[in-house]
């Protein structure tokens, strides 16, 4: 034994003690609150909810606008009396779109901050990291920001919100089947649950004899030239694309380079005209060319489950623009902001329905007994057995940088045989108070 060893071992012991002290310093009291609250996270004056959001990292551009927009709507509600007098406090933590971090921040929200519910957790791989945990801990997990149909069944505490990719694929597929009968169709899709679910929905509607080529991409590889060349070589006249905006833009540019001009049908995920035009111009500039973004997006067929942004006659758009101008004016009023406000509105709807002194179970009960149609163009399918969310969307065509609705709103289910039918109801207008 020599003494330097002892020094080091002493140092190790000291460090461990230091570690414990450091870990202890940050701890805050979490014990059950003593007020006569109906559930953890609810006090006489406040409802505390939490979320995991990609505020930094690769998914942050665009998506980081959603939570502040939802919070802006909550501030509007708080300023107008709150929910039964309680103000909504929304704590959203950054997970950088990394599932390990999601696991950590959601435990922080649940175990330390004692949130009443997790709201609008963003991302499929990220939210899958915590969905089992939240359900075993019986924490309401409402309105996940992901179009995976995984939330629809199997998780009693979890509820989806936006139109799922299978339904969306069916609605786009039915449109292609009807309007491009006999034409050759190619698929271009992201090789993950988003693209694969979309293709599943498309395949339920488009006869397989019409599909001449299926090409996938991974988001980490921007070299999609070979895939686009294969689509062109297959003779496809219509290309249905399940891509994020950057890859929709790359697809369009690659086709342009090949002098190929098929009709593009793009999922709502990758078709926001403002985002697309910007990306097209930026990518073309990198390649040494100049393009007019809005000219290239002209004629792209897509779908939408919220009212179109340019439609100022729609009372929901008018409401959310008003809230945006008061509480979230720094962000552009784009699709992400609209999404955040709309999902915030839905949460307030559910809280109002859950009652004056709601337990956690009251919230899930309120949603699974059905929510009235709100800012979405189609109703929700919430029931005791289905926690999916929106049932339909309209088909739109991009004209001069804005989506123009074509025909009615279509609704369907996620089964292979369920029909795509025109929605006969009309969207109720936004309440004049702006609150459910």
């Amino acid at each position: 034994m020599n003494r330097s060893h002892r020094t080091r071992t002493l140092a190790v012991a000291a460090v461990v003690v230091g570690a414990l002290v450091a870990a202890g310093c940050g701890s805050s009291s979490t014990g059950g609150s003593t007020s006569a609250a109906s559930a953890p996270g609810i006090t006489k004056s406040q409802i505390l909810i939490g979320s995991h959001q990609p505020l930094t990292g690769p998914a942050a551009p665009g998506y980081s606008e959603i939570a502040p927009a939802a919070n802006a709507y909550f501030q509007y509600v708080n300023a107008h009396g709150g929910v039964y007098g309680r103000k909504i406090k929304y704590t959203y933590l950054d997970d950088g779109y990394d599932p390990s971090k999601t696991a950590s921040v959601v435990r922080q929200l649940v175990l330390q901050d004692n949130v009443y519910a997790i709201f609008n957790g963003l991302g499929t791989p990220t939210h899958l990291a915590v969905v089992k945990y939240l359900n075993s801990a019986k924490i309401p997990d409402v309105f996940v920001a992901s179009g995976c149909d995984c939330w629809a069944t199997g998780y009693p505490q979890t509820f989806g919100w936006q139109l799922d990719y299978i339904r969306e694929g069916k609605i786009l597929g039915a449109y292609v089947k009807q309007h491009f009968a006999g034409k050759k169709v190619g698929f271009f899709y992201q090789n993950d649950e988003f693209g694969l679910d979309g293709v599943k929905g498309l395949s339920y509607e488009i006869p397989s004899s019409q599909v001449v080529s299926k090409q996938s991409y991974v988001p980490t590889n921007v070299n999609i030239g070979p895939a686009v060349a294969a689509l062109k070589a297959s003779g496809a006249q219509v290309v249905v694309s399940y891509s994020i905006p950057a890859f929709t833009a790359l697809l369009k540019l690659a086709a342009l380079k090949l002098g190929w001009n098929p009709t593009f049908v793009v999922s709502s995920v990758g078709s926001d005209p403002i985002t697309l035009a910007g990306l097209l111009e930026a990518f073309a500039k990198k390649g040494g060319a100049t393009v007019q973004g809005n000219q290239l997006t002209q004629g792209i067929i897509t779908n939408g489950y919220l009212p179109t942004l340019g439609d100022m006659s729609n009372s929901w758009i008018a409401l959310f623009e008003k809230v945006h101008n008061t509480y979230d004016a720094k962000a552009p009023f784009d699709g992400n902001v609209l999404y955040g406000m709309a999902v915030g509105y839905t949460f307030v709807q559910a809280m109002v329905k859950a009652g004056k002194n709601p337990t956690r179970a009251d919230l899930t009960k309120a949603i699974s007994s059905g929510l009235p149609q709100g800012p979405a163009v189609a109703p929700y399918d919430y029931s005791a057995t289905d926690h999916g969310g929106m049932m339909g969307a309209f088909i739109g065509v991009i004209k001069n940088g804005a989506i123009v609705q074509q025909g009615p709103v279509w609704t369907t289910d996620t089964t292979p045989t369920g029909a795509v039918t025109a929605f006969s109801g009309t969207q109720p207008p936004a309440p004049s108070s702006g609150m459910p």
Partner: protein
Amino acid sequence: MTMTLLRHLAVAIVAGALVWAASVQLNAFRDYQIAEIAVYVVAIAGLSVLIGLSGQISLGNGAFMAIGAYATALLVIHLNWPVWAVFPASAAITAVAGGVVGIAAARLSGPYLAGATLLLAVALPSLALQWPGVFGGDQGLSIVVTAPARLGATFPLTRWQAWVCSLAALITLVLLANLVRSRVGRNWRAIRDDPVAAALTGLNVGRLRVLAFVVSATCAGLAGAMLTFTTTLVSPGSFTLSLSIALLTGAVLGGLGTLAGAIWGALVIVLVPTYVTDVATSHGLSSGVAANIPIAAYGVVLIVVMLLFPNGIQGGVRRLAGPLLPANLTRLASPDRQQPASEQAEGLASPDRRRPVSEHQEEGTK
């Protein structure tokens, strides 16, 4: 040797008792953070030994963590193995992968080695997307972790996770502490400081480098297994390049080549972002600013530590504690060592004397 082992064991037992006491006192989320810290301690210790002792760099240890993590998930899902069997098995699988990479890596040095391991970090996680049937694609694989029934129905799961991960980390640290004090550790220091001289004295430089890679990968694999056990999910999004960089940052911040430094590094990586986020949000900063403050704080900590303590936090601790423990740090070589006195005095590594790794290697190849 046995005395060394006993002493390390004694310290580990004391440390284990302290962690146990803390885990019982602290709330369930802090327990979770203890588990997270244990994960990073193991991963950073493995990397720190590789860089600080053998003089090789790896930007690919995040990928080794992915191998261990996926091995754990697959073993639990398909074979339903218990945790005490899964951890060593996952570490062993990763050790094999580390050996394969190490054989290639031993021929490279400096930026070329960094580049090759970088490739690993970037490419390996996307394999999960290539075979979604096996690896669950983008969604990954999830496992069920429960605390043993005999602990009671209300026992917090996070405390159980903290216990298991801390135990694994302490065992790893004891083994590493013995390894770096053994002949292998001395040989690593020899090839780090001067590979040519080491070869002339009869050391097999290539084999020692591969061995260092294997040890480092084994630690990373175990850390990956612990991560899966803690988060109960493994998916490609957890093993990005930034994880590998974070491990490297942790190793440098804590003090390269020191095991205590690995603990410091893990504490900084896990606690600083949470703490800073708490402070930032409680001061009502706008979300756009608050979200980026942890990253900024991380950078500030990095700069401050590197300016004040170029040898990492552990180097700083030694420097500050030095006057209090005069006998230890000024001690000369003991008879059973072949290394220079200054090397010996610093224990594991000799940060004051050491130059950057690349310099050593350039010299070695001249």
